[in-house]
């Protein structure tokens, strides 16, 4: 079964019509529908979102990548801290990572002030958090596998051998 292929196509473009996916994978349309339903039910597909290039929009949108260091005690594990942080709507992504720091957190807000306040007032006071390092995103070149900014013009000849 080409579940994987269906997934790859959904990741490429979640708005592909099931009929198009069926054509590309040689499956029946209802097989594609069933596969997608199953993937959703099993929690493999968690949702569908737009990939936005905020720079193309007039409204300001501020994003930051925040490195977090934590100190665990006998009662608290990474999962407990994560649960607490993930609940904030400002947090768009949260990952436990290996290396120099523990968590990698993506935060979004309407202004630098808002994001800074969120980090200093909501994140930093969490008792297990020992350090935060905030990196504001200046320009995004690629999101979710999609390159942002001006696409390459196709300068191939309109006919060629």
């Amino acid at each position, binding site marked *: 079964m080409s579940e994987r292929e269906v997934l790859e196509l959904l990741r490429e473009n979640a708005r592909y019509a099931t009929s198009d996916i069926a*054509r590309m994978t040689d499956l029946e349309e209802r097989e594609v529908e069933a596969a997608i339903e199953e993937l959703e039910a099993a929690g493999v597909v968690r949702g569908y979102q737009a990939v936005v290039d905020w720079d193309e929009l007039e409204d300001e949108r501020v994003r930051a990548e925040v490195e977090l260091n934590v100190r665990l005690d006998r009662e608290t594990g990474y999962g407990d801290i994560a649960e607490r942080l993930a609940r904030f709507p400002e947090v768009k992504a949260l990952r436990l990572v290996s290396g120099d720091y523990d968590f990698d957190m993506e935060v979004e807000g309407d202004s630098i002030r808002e994001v800074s306040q969120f980090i200093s007032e909501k994140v930093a006071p969490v008792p297990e958090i020992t350090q935060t390092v905030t990196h504001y995103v200046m320009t995004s070149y690629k999101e979710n596998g999609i390159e942002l900014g001006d696409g390459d013009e196709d300068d*191939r000849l309109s006919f060629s*051998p």
Partner: protein
Amino acid sequence: MTIELSDRVKAVPPSGIRRFFEIAEERDEVISLGVGEPDFSTPWAARDAAIASLERGKTSYTANRGTRELREAIADYAADRFELDYDPGEEIIVTAGASEAVDLAFRAFVDPGDTVAIAQPSYISYEPGVIFAGGEVLSVPTREEDEFRLTVDALEAAGADEADLLVLCYPNNPTGAIMREEDLEPIAAFAREHDLTVLSDEIYAELTYDGEHASIATLEGMRERTIVFNGFSKAHAMTGLRLGYALGPAGAIAAMNKIHQYTMLSAPTTAQHAALEALESCENDVREMVDQYDRRRRFVLSRFREIGMDVFEAKGAFYCFPEVPDGWTAEEFAEGVLREQGVAAVPGDVFGAGGEEHLRISYATGLEDLREALARIEAFVEERA
């Protein structure tokens, strides 16, 4: 005073697609399905290798036959992928595109008056190449009923037993047809029986979507009478780097090299560095591109069927070859969809006998454009129905 042109040049008519090109240029928002080159860029590792070679000042000629490293890498690759075993010292020549290699072969093996049989429909450069070399073209039409594969019947019907050379192109541009080993066996027997030299252009070998590519040179008694052409333009998305190669018996390659060393000296050095890297580390990039083409292929085939246009089940290259609806010539249909719907496709007759009443559709184009182009073709067909 005007310069008197050679009869050979005058014998070749202007390209059949030039007129369409001019129409396409004056119209806005044309989606082109007429492009015979990848829409992907050269894999980064290969581009990096080219840049690094420039930074290190590797800008001189290489050995005439190409760098030793590249020929060795080609030998390994051809052996691993296609069971083609050739000695990098004497049996491989690196050229400025497969195009140059094909031209070298015509000039090295064709005497004035010699006959070159070409299985058609086929890539448009063979015929002029034969004429420039002073040879005569014998067209061997293949038919959709045979899945555009070459058969011994077709060879016999065309009188190819009298020919000196036979040109094959599988996977085929423009039909997308492939030939499996069992299809090649009788052709090989025919070539041996009638003492034909075979020129096998296998530049689309990697782009085989169903099973593995088979080369006629691997069949018994064929190695000594076959030249295999390949290159980096298609599978490695390197058209503009101009790099190809030929594999063949030492004497034949030496003859091709004799011409090459006086006309080209050596293939582009920067491109040779890119090509080496392409062979050494870009296998995954190739696989990924092939997967994409395969998806588009299935999409396009299925859409044509839905539109109600007969379409041949292409299994190779990045073309498909639908039949134009009854009452149209390929040329009229191609011009109609281009003028009225802004979709550029190549009429099949430019590829020679057997291509009439077909269009060549290239799916080396993004899926969004393909979807839109097919919707426009559908609208065009429905309006006329």
